[in-house]
């Protein structure tokens, strides 16, 4: 029974999202095939890039069965509401993601870059190394360093 409500909630949320977008005057249409049979919740796809971070304000849908109040309010509802919001956002984000791929724009990417959580990456203290290398990559140098490097590069070509 709960799965049915979840599925209905997802469907209604999708519909609300489409209506929300239409009222915002967004040009891209979004084709959605809502689930009509109860089934497992959509799995969270990997958005990867490009970005489509969307925040949706979801209102509790009115389902005319009389069960929805008990199930969707309170702790359980909060937890699941949060999960569904995330899932829905991502699921809708995937659809929007497809659209984004076709119509990237500067502003959305900027918002994405600025709101993305930094991934946790390995760090290390840099260490000078004695190594023979063929080529060196580095930022553009000052004029003195440039002359030095040019001289040494020219020396090596002899």
């Amino acid at each position, binding site marked *: 029974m709960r799965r049915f409500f979840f599925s209905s909630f997802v469907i209604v949320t999708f519909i609300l999202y489409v209506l929300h977008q239409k009222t915002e005057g967004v040009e891209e249409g979004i084709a959605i095939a809502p689930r009509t049979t109860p089934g497992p919740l959509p799995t969270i796809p990997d958005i990867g890039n490009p970005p489509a971070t969307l925040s949706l304000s979801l209102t509790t849908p009115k389902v005319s069965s009389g069960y929805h109040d008990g199930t969707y309010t309170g702790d359980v509802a909060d937890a699941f509401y949060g999960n569904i919001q995330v899932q829905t956002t991502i699921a809708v984000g995937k659809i929007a993601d497809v659209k984004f791929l076709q119509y990237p724009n*500067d502003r959305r990417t900027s918002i994405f*870059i600025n709101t993305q959580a930094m991934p946790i*990456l390995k*760090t290390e203290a840099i260490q000078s*190394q004695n190594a023979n*290398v063929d080529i060196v990559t580095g930022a*553009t140098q000052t004029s003195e360093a440039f002359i030095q490097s040019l001289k040494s590069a020219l020396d090596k070509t002899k």
Partner: protein
Amino acid sequence: MKQTRLLMGMPITVEIVDNSARVGDFDMVYDYFSYVDNVFSPYKPESEISRIRDGKLSPSLSGQDIDLILRLAQETKNLTGGYFDIYRNGRLDPSGIVKGWTINNAANLLKKNGFSDFYVDAGGDIQVSGKNSHGQNWRVGIRHPQKKNQIVKVLSLTNEGVATSGTYERGNHIYNPKIQCPLISDVISLTVIGPNVYEADRFATAAFAMGKKGIGFIEKSPGLEGYMIDKDGIATITTGFSRYTVPS
């Protein structure tokens, strides 16, 4: 055979391992760099780019390469949320994309002429191909940002491009186009490895302007790996970067 010539305001080194390389092959590469310099140098008042910048030439009347670069710059700007921008304080300077694009084109000229083992290095942005004269992957050192004759990392590359954006002693030469009085001080060097030096250069330029978030952008971009050095001498490394590093 290896040559270094000074063009576009920097030393440009070309090494071709293939025994069949002749001086004419080097001339071909350097002639191409000269051509690009004449079109795109912001330091030559009569270059096409300078005349467009100074309002003496309409972009719509400019040549194919200007047109292409302007479109590539716009695409890069879109992909990077505006952090890549060839208009700085309203002044047109596409150097952050022209350099990598030119090196990549020069490398493709060599490939079209049948060469498979070479590199083209313009001011520390490099396209490699094949193997060095010892039959091994090209060993590319990342320069220490402050001690110019030392290296901090050794890379083993065979078909990639690598570009480093950073500051030099007298100040910052890449600005965050999003803020008025911009000085990027958190990050002093960002090295990006990409499938070719055009990709590496444009995204190194953009990611450097993002400050410390830039390395996160590189991490999330497929096909790019990065090594960021901050002002405290701490490097941050993308997940796949170690596939290119060599213990020295």
